[in-house]
């Protein structure tokens, strides 16, 4: 990529005058190596403003999941992460988890309780909310994803589409201000995919999702990032980035 091309994909840094409000996510110099030595993140710089809807693209192994798992402290690399202005540290990780709802790619990694209701209630229960508030939140979260009637079922007996929606409910019940989703539409049939996308579009949260689904990125995101080998190599408004054939091709991506 030439330097002029790169310039069009620079993150939209707020101007000094308009930066009174804090960014939803700020990451500086983030590096992470897996215990076996794989350098999965190699200097991530990223700023996401409140209300943005960001699609994270890139081939398998680019480091998308690894990056996302840093946002609520599941993985801890070196570098700085700020969520809503608060630096992520051992002391703040608990409160940051209340603000960042993380949905794993595989619902079986997300759901660990014997019933759907228990799983959706886990977050609010752990936070120490009172009984009425918990029931209200679980009910709202299940209603939001259209899964109220499976509340008493075993999570792993649901279809993949249902499990994906229940996974989302388990973090919605915590009422986070940022949602982080790893490949939310992967493996879904067209109807389940459509339902999930409509659901995500209706949510008010700041959104950051990894995806290979270019139509989903185009229709639901306002901004797109491309990762390669542990770095963010392109960043810009989704319409511009997806219209840039040569850049997409360079990183192995293609339009539907």
């Amino acid at each position, binding site marked *: 990529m030439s330097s002029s091309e790169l310039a069009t994909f620079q993150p939209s840094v707020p101007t000094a005058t308009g930066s009174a409000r804090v960014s939803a996510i700020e990451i500086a110099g983030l590096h992470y190596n897996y215990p076996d030595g794989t350098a999965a993140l190699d200097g991530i710089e990223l700023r996401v403003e409140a209300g943005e809807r960001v699609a994270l693209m890139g081939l398998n192994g680019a480091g998308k999941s690894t990056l996302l798992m840093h946002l609520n402290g*599941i993985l801890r690399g070196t570098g700085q992460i700020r969520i809503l202005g608060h630096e992520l540290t051992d002391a703040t990780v*608990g409160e940051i988890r209340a603000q960042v709802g993380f949905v794993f790619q595989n619902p079986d990694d997300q759901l660990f309780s014997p019933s759907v209701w228990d799983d959706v209630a886990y977050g609010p229960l752990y936070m120490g909310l009172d009984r009425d508030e918990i029931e209200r939140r679980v009910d709202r979260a299940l209603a939001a994803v259209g899964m109220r009637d499976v509340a008493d079922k075993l999570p792993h007996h649901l279809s993949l589409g249902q499990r994906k929606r229940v996974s989302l409910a388990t973090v919605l019940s915590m009422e986070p201000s940022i949602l982080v989703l790893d490949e939310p539409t992967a493996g879904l049939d067209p109807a389940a995919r459509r339902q999930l996308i409509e659901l995500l579009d209706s949510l008010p949260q700041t959104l950051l999702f990894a995806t290979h689904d270019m139509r989903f990125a185009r229709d639901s995101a306002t901004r797109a990032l491309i990762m390669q080998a542990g770095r963010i190599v392109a960043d810009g408004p989704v319409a511009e980035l997806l219209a840039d054939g040569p850049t997409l091709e360079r990183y192995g991506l293609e339009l539907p």
Partner: protein
Amino acid sequence: MSLPAWLTAERYQARDSFLHRRDARIKLVVTVSAAFAVTLTPEGNWLAFGAFALVVGAFMVLSRLPVGFYLRRAGLALPFVAAAVPLIFTRPGETLFTLPLFGWTASTAGLVAVASIVLKAMLAVLMATTLVGTTPPQALLRALERLRVPRLLSSTIMLMYRYLFVIAEEGQRMLRARESRSASRVNLHAGRSVGWRAGVLGRMVGTLFLRSYERSERVYVAMAARGYDGTIRTVRAEHSPDTFDWLMLLGSLSAFAGIVVYVLV
């Protein structure tokens, strides 16, 4: 996500040494005989334990496995061995010392018993560690079959080895999911109570069991669909013992027999 590397012995099995090259059946027989011989040796036979230690030490040197690997494995066995410690106080015999506060008396006979049990256990564990560190699991399982260990047992062990890691990783992912949603709010007490958290963990174990059980049924159906009848077949080239293997077998068995006979007669 993977298990801690120190839990598996794979990277040690891939090394090379005199012992790595030996026939798995021979190693298995030698290891089991060593364990029997050490167990047969009566308590307090320090000379015999010393002789066993020399043999076990020789195998450890021949394996060229790092000392750290042996120490970690021996460490895993320690909690079980610790169960023998109360014997110091329960064996009747000449008083060694009295525990202040409790007033329990330790006996010399008790000390001898505990020391012997710890020694026996450690010698057996070090021998087993040598076997496991120098033999890949497939070779070990094949050795069990060729030694005519009942098929049900060998195929159960094989499937257990295959799925142990799958299940352990599944458990780790469940713990990660729980951690990911264990959040706190200012002015609220996070984590409720120890009892509540224990209840959650208990239900997670239940869920893991249920998932594993259902997985086992799916695996069985898939295997049966491909003609599984209880035998694990292989077309890999079969090993046959060479001169070194026979020499090692003869040498070790006579050493163990010699020590045991010397002690018992």
